[in-house]
């Protein structure tokens, strides 16, 4: 068993750490406060091929790998959960389904500009009445000559309103249940496609979370992604990979909170000595560091499996379940260790605790991950 990152992955971490510290961290508190989408971060990431890390160079990517991509999300999330999820949703949910299921023409037209970062991607599965029960799609796509006519709405779409290309799921045959769902590539500014409500959220506040509305939206047939009726499978396999991204985000948030807290404990003095000298607090730090390292192993293992063509459905579910739980647990404790200061916006752990919560919810709640894992064991 080899626990060493490759030299390339090591350098990706170094670069992502430096980039995150210099470019992302300085604005993290401000964009959290205002909820402003950090377009400049997207542009800077594009400049350094960070928006297409695991895709081959000939398809606009960086020619990197899944683990390097997970490390990138981790390092961004260490200072800013918002920027972490922008990258994760774009790469895993926006680009990957086209890479995996797209035709050559679709890859040329959509994946290349996405992976180059000239365009931003998003994934639209969730509906008001189809959350965890994603099969209950009410958006419909009706065949009409050379087109499909899309009607319905999506909610909670990450990068919604900011993205240029959306992977949208819709029922093409109601009688067939999950086999009646199909996936489409929809460009922004397609007539009949509008952005509705932008959510006000507890955390990842500068990430755009939007409602998408389709009213007689005409999608050319060549934008059907994968086979007709295979949309549900596309959605589920895409989410398997997406979970690695979110697990990496959770891992990064936890690591960021711990790093802030270690610093704080060394500086803060009470009873005439720094907090780091109190054994009760040392034990908390030790437990958190251990939990984070365990999460890291699960996340990297899932990413490694995906990179190497090994099964990763269960591994990704375990990684996300554990890392999200770790993020929530660690950030809550880190606020506690900061005392009253931790509850204020003067210290980043307050934001990190709010950012952590979503990792237990999106791209499959923790309960869904448990269902996936149990499904592997009990089938």
């Amino acid at each position, binding site marked *: 068993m080899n626990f060493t990152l490759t*030299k390339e992955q090591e350098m990706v971490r170094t670069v992502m750490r430096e980039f995150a510290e210099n470019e992302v961290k300085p604005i993290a508190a401000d964009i959290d406060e205002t909820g402003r989408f950090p377009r400049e971060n997207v542009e800077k990431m594009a400049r350094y*091929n960070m928006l297409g890390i695991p895709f081959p160079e000939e398809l606009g990517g*960086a020619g990197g790998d899944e683990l390097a991509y997970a490390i990138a999300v981790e390092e961004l999330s260490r200072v800013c959960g918002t920027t972490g999820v922008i990258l994760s949703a774009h790469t895993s949910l926006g680009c990957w389904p086209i890479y995996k299921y797209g035709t050559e023409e679709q890859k040329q037209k959509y994946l290349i500009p996405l992976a180059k970062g000239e365009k931003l991607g998003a994934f639209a599965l969730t509906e008001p009445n189809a959350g965890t029960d994603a099969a209950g799609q009410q958006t419909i796509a009706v065949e009409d000559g050379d087109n499909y006519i899309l009607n319905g709405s999506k909610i909670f779409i990450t990068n919604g309103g900011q993205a240029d290309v959306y992977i949208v799921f819709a029922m093409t045959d109601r009688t067939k249940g999950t086999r009646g769902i199909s996936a489409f590539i929809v460009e922004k500014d397609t007539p009949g496609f509008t952005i509705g409500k932008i959510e006000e959220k507890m955390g990842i506040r500068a990430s755009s979370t939007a409602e998408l509305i389709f009213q007689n939206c005409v999608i050319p047939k060549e934008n059907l992604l994968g086979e007709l009726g295979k949309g549900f499978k596309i959605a589920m396999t895409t989410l398997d990979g997406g979970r690695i991204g979110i697990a990496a985000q959770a891992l990064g948030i936890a690591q960021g909170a711990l790093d802030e807290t270690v610093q704080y404990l060394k500086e803060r003095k009470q009873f005439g000595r720094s907090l780091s000298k109190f054994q009760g607090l040392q034990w908390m730090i030790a437990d958190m560091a251990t939990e984070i390292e365990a999460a890291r192993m699960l996340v990297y293992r899932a990413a490694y499996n995906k990179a190497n063509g090994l099964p990763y459905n269960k591994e990704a579910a375990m990684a996300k379940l554990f890392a999200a739980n770790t993020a929530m647990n660690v950030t809550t404790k880190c606020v506690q260790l900061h005392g009253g200061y931790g509850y204020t916006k003067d210290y980043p752990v307050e934001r990190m605790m709010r950012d952590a919560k979503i990792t237990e919810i999106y791209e499959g709640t923790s309960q869904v991950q448990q269902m996936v894992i149990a499904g592997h064991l009990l089938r």
Partner: protein
Amino acid sequence: MKIIVCLKQVPDTNEVKIDPVKGTLIREGVPSIINPDDRNALEEALKIKDKCKDTVVTVVSMGPPQADVALKEALAIGADEAILLSDRAFAGSDTWATSTAIAGAIKNIGDYDIIFCGRQAIDGDTAQVGPQIAEHLGIPQITYVEELEILDGKVRAKRALEDGYFVVESEMPVLLTAIKELNEPRYPSIKGIYKAYRENKVTVWTANDYEVDRDNLGLDGSPTEVNKSFTPPGKASEVEMLNGDAKEAARQLVVRLKERKII
């Protein structure tokens, strides 16, 4: 244009701790980075390449085999090729021996218009290697460059001094040392990282691979002797209290500021 950038791999001094007994740097477990001023030197070379596409940027470093990482990083940032001078014969070099080794390598490369160095390395802070290379090669040098213009066959550089600046022109070839004010260094791109390792354009030269005066290499070829390393006591800051009423104190303040040419 042909540009050579000299860079050094150094311990990240932000992460360095001092051994309280010996007074020396504890280097174990400290990450290595490209010396910050050298990143500025490389950036300036790449800015020239951005404008003038047929520019070739070659980075040169002297160091142990592990310094390969710093050169791979330079390639990932955008350099075209890299040469690592690595040999037991170079070990223990002071600035004289280092500049001898590097200048010899540059002579062996032969064709160049500009040599960029960082002003100084954060681990030694001597600021000597750049100027010494220029002297070995017998070419002009402009140190502390904070602004650079490439003219027809010439460079015009703004040299930063403590309380002013010089604008200096020089023919090429010329050696320039960069300070951090010169530019904002770019990061390695992710694509560049994978490409750097895939193509592996780092060539290793030992002391036998090119013509160099072996008597001036390594510890034996270094005139410098380190007698003692210690942390100097901190400088006490000077505070002067201006007495008298507000008007008198303000008048005195104006005098002090004028004396220091601040106003």
